[in-house]
């Protein structure tokens, strides 16, 4: 008889394994109230924060762009437009709009994507609950270059673009997010803490 086959093992060894597994199957009791409160607090908080930040962005951004910020934005826009006819990979690494206004300590990051035939492009990521309706990109006048500015909390984030509401695309200009939890391709972005700079 094979000695150590998983199923056909020596009887004594198998008994002890089954006893061990039975012991390990005993339920574990967690402090439910405390644990659930921690989870739900975390679950509910970021959604509100992003929403508030977007509202705040809508209110404030028109009054606080410095001349240098405007120049930087114009340069970036020119790069994006001129890059529209170039390889997609060269155009769109998300950039921290350092000179653009910052809201509540959250740096504003500009995301861009070239999709000349798309009718819509949306940004999805861990910062907006992966909601394809939350952060649409706007097309430029020519229609092929899409961009959006978003306040992003400092830290590492993963994100992707959703084209025409259904096709999930990583950012070709950003590092891929390896080893994440999901099957779809993602991109990685690390936003520095402005307070640490």
């Amino acid at each position: 008889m094979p000695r150590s086959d998983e199923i056909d093992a020596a009887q004594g060894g198998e008994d002890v394994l089954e006893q061990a597994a039975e012991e390990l199957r005993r339920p574990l009791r967690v402090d439910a109230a405390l644990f659930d409160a921690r989870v739900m607090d975390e679950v509910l908080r970021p959604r509100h924060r992003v929403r508030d930040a977007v509202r705040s962005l809508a209110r404030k951004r028109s009054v606080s762009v410095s001349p240098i910020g405007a120049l930087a934005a114009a340069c970036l826009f020119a790069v994006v437009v001129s890059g529209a006819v170039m390889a997609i990979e060269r155009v769109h690494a998300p950039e921290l709009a350092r000179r653009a206004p910052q809201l509540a300590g959250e740096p504003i990051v500009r995301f861009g994507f070239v999709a000349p035939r798309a009718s819509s492009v949306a940004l999805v990521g861990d910062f907006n609950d992966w909601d394809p309706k939350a952060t649409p990109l706007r097309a430029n006048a020519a229609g092929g270059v899409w961009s959006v500015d978003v306040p992003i909390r400092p830290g590492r984030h993963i994100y992707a673009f959703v084209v025409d509401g259904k096709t999930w695309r990583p950012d070709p200009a950003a590092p891929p997010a390896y080893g994440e939890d999901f099957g779809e391709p993602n991109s990685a972005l690390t936003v520095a803490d402005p307070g640490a700079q």
Partner: protein
Amino acid sequence: MEPSDAALVATVLKGDSEAYAQLVDRYRDRYARFALQMLGNREDAEDALQDAFVRAYRSLRRCSEPERFGSWLLAILANRCRTAGGRRTLRERRFVSAEDRHHAIALDHPSDASAWREEIGKALSRLDADQREAFLLKHVEGLEYEEMAAITGAGVSALKMRVKRACDRMRRMLTEGDDAPVG
């Protein structure tokens, strides 16, 4: 009748975030056990589980089979445990200490069982992380190999090998007291 996982996921996605608490309640204890056995430390286990729940919530739109929310969550948790476990060597930690298990498990278990629990915990801690994960998913969580493959990303034959090796080693440690470190 309790709502199904799929119904709860749909409710959350429609905007009722509070409904997520029911999913947390449904999977908390079972997956806390898995995390504790993977990480050997209650605090790390609860952190990993909390992280998994929060990540799952934020990615809920990407749960393509909401009726299998539990498996999807377990895949996220297993990933979190791998990440957390990789940060520090498991052997540097306490593993499912008698104290933890006393607090964790019903108090009416006889105290003389604590040595046995500790022995199991030590044996488990000496397995490679991959083997420990495979052993727990198969023999504690009771999953089929196909489910394990979907959760871990490993192939079925590789998983069978991990389980076999884990079983061999666990059996040896628990019967012969062999506590030589793996690998």
